[in-house]
């Protein structure tokens, strides 16, 4: 019964994510006006900011899951951290690709070794390393412990990435939403802020849908392993 209700909840979440995503796409690509300075290319912002915020959220959950695993040694916390890391890597990589596509027409280059871009690339490498670590160490408990430590260290890159535009002279613009000195509506006009907020919600819903599927997969894989182990020790 709980399995069936879990599946129903996931379907509902997936449907809601799809609905809000379609609204976000319509608002961002058709309804919102073009930016006065950058023109239509600024519409990439409706992907770029939601992607990095989703990546931050995902890596925050890696941090939470890793801390809980090191503290309590419960497999569920490790599954949460592992699931969030896998999806986090996807959203960090997408952020870099979108930024590169946006950078070409606005900065004239696909890539530059700017502080924020470099730190984001390091962020991606840390969590690619996290996923590699899990598959390279055979002893699962050791792999989970090493990955949890790396997950906690990797999370510390987020404040560095966020503050890099203030601490170093960079080509990347200051934050649009999470500014320490201004509220988002003081920084972006409402006709551009509204589609951005809708897309942030759409990405968050999509993220939790993907996470629920990936977490369920982790649970099933654990159950299969446990049953196989019980069978081999019985025979």
């Amino acid at each position, binding site marked *: 019964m709980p399995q069936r209700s879990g599946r129903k909840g996931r379907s509902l979440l997936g449907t809601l994510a799809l609905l809000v995503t379609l609204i976000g796409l319509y608002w961002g690509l058709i309804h919102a006006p073009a930016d006065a300075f950058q023109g239509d290319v600024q519409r990439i912002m409706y992907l770029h900011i939601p992607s990095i915020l989703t990546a931050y959220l995902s890596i925050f959950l890696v941090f939470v899951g890793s801390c809980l695993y090191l503290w309590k040694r419960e497999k569920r916390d490790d599954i949460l951290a592992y699931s969030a890391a896998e999806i986090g890597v996807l959203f960090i990589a997408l952020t870099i690709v979108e930024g590169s596509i*946006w950078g070409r027409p606005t900065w004239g280059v696909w890539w530059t070794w700017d502080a924020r871009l470099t730190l984001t690339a390091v962020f991606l490498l840390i969590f690619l390393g996290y996923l590699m670590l899990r598959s390279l160490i055979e002893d699962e408990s050791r792999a989970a412990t090493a990955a949890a430590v790396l997950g906690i260290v990797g999370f510390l890159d987020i404040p560095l990435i966020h503050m890099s535009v203030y601490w170093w002279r960079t080509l990347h613009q200051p934050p649009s939403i999470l500014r320490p000195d201004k509220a988002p509506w003081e920084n972006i006009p409402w006709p551009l802020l509204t589609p951005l907020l809708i897309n942030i919600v759409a990405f968050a819903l999509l993220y939790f849908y993907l996470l629920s599927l990936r977490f369920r997969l982790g649970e099933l*894989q654990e159950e299969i392993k446990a049953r196989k182990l019980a069978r081999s020790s019985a025979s």
Partner: protein
Amino acid sequence: MDAWGYVMLAYGVVWGAILLYLLSLKRRLRRAESDLALLQAEEETGANEEK
């Protein structure tokens, strides 16, 4: 490439990658569910034979 070309490239890459990931996740989930069902069926058969 004009502005809309870059916008379409970005949206295509992002939604293409998310869709591919979602499909691979669903495929892995289906495979795990069928593996588990198979294991459960084998365990039940084994238990019945023991009786």
